[in-house]
């Protein structure tokens, strides 16, 4: 992507963002995050998202472990983890992940083990998709930042 113009990359970013919005993967809270980023805090979004990734992966691991306890799944603990994941997902604008947490929590409240397992699979899937897309977004952003400082000669083919 080196040498591609700033404008092109900006368009790529917007296209990806629009897609994620359209798919309901992200909501307007994500835009709020972006608005909090400026020269005084130039990496704010990626810092928060990185924290979100770490926390979420811990929570997902814990949820999987809890569900492996076939005998007596600790649904209360599951709900605590889910509430945490719901909260942080909502805070970064991860709408679909959050919605799956809601359904997961409903299954947990009914002590529905099979339902919880299905929910966890879906949650892991949604989380993976979100993570991949956000990484893509950050890569484009990095390229754009790079392109805006590096000057290439007019003819570089």
């Amino acid at each position, binding site marked *: 992507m080196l040498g591609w113009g700033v404008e092109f990359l900006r368009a790529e970013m917007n296209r990806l963002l629009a897609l994620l919005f359209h798919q309901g993967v992200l909501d307007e809270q994500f835009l709020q995050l972006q608005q909090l980023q400026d020269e005084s805090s130039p990496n704010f979004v990626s810092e928060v998202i990185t924290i979100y990734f770490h926390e979420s992966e811990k929570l997902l691991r814990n949820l999987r472990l809890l569900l492996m306890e076939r005998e007596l799944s600790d649904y209360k603990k599951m709900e605590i983890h889910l509430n945490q994941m719901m909260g942080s997902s909502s805070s970064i604008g991860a709408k679909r992940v959050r919605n799956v947490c*809601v359904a997961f929590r409903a299954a947990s409240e009914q002590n529905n083990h099979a339902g919880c397992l299905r929910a966890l699979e879906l949650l892991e899937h949604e989380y993976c998709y979100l993570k991949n897309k956000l990484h893509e977004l950050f890569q484009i952003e990095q390229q754009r930042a790079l392109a805006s400082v590096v000057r290439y000669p007019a003819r570089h083919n």
Partner: protein
Amino acid sequence: MGTAAEPQFHVLAVDDSLVDRKLIERLLKISSYQVTAVDSGSKALEFLGSRGNNGRSSSDPVPSVSPNDHQGVEVNLIITDYCMPGMTGYDLLKKIKESSSLRDIPVVIMSSENVPSRISRCLEEGAEEFILKPVRLSDVNKLRPHMRRTKKLKTHQQEPREDSERHGEIRSQPARQHELEIQQSQHHPSQQVPQHQQQKSSNNNKRKAIDAEEGLSPDRARTRYSGVATF
């Protein structure tokens, strides 16, 4: 906030979620507040106990205070999450309002869940506002009228704002009257409502929290659980 003469309000933020702490910290800093963020109610009380609030413990040595500070750092507002393990935001609120040295620090509660009974409980206990998460810049902008003004008017830290000139020293008041007193000098006429009147049509966050559920909020209409599969 460039000049040394302008004091910054100091907000104590309490939230067990690191993501939310980062968010609230940034929101507050962008709004020119000084921020201390802690992850639990007990840490919050610890922090408050070590500060010179209301002069109760100002005689105690505060190790982290620079020699130029007069009383240590005061807290002008506490914003806390509701759902926290151990001490909830509600528990913290109660403890603060029960403490003679802390009770006139305004407290704002945040929650990701819109539960009317929870909201009224908090407001009745003396919370100034109840903000629905995720917290946005517009929510933080509405905090300013609730700020407890710096107690001691130090000469080199004289507040340039008009309300301090009109009111002079703060008088220790129960939380409800405190809110009205502050609001008299503010330019937010819509916020001159007692805390209990949540159903009144005004543009404050209390109404937003309740009416959002009934779909009346003019603010972002949030469809909370749309398109959710059941398992």
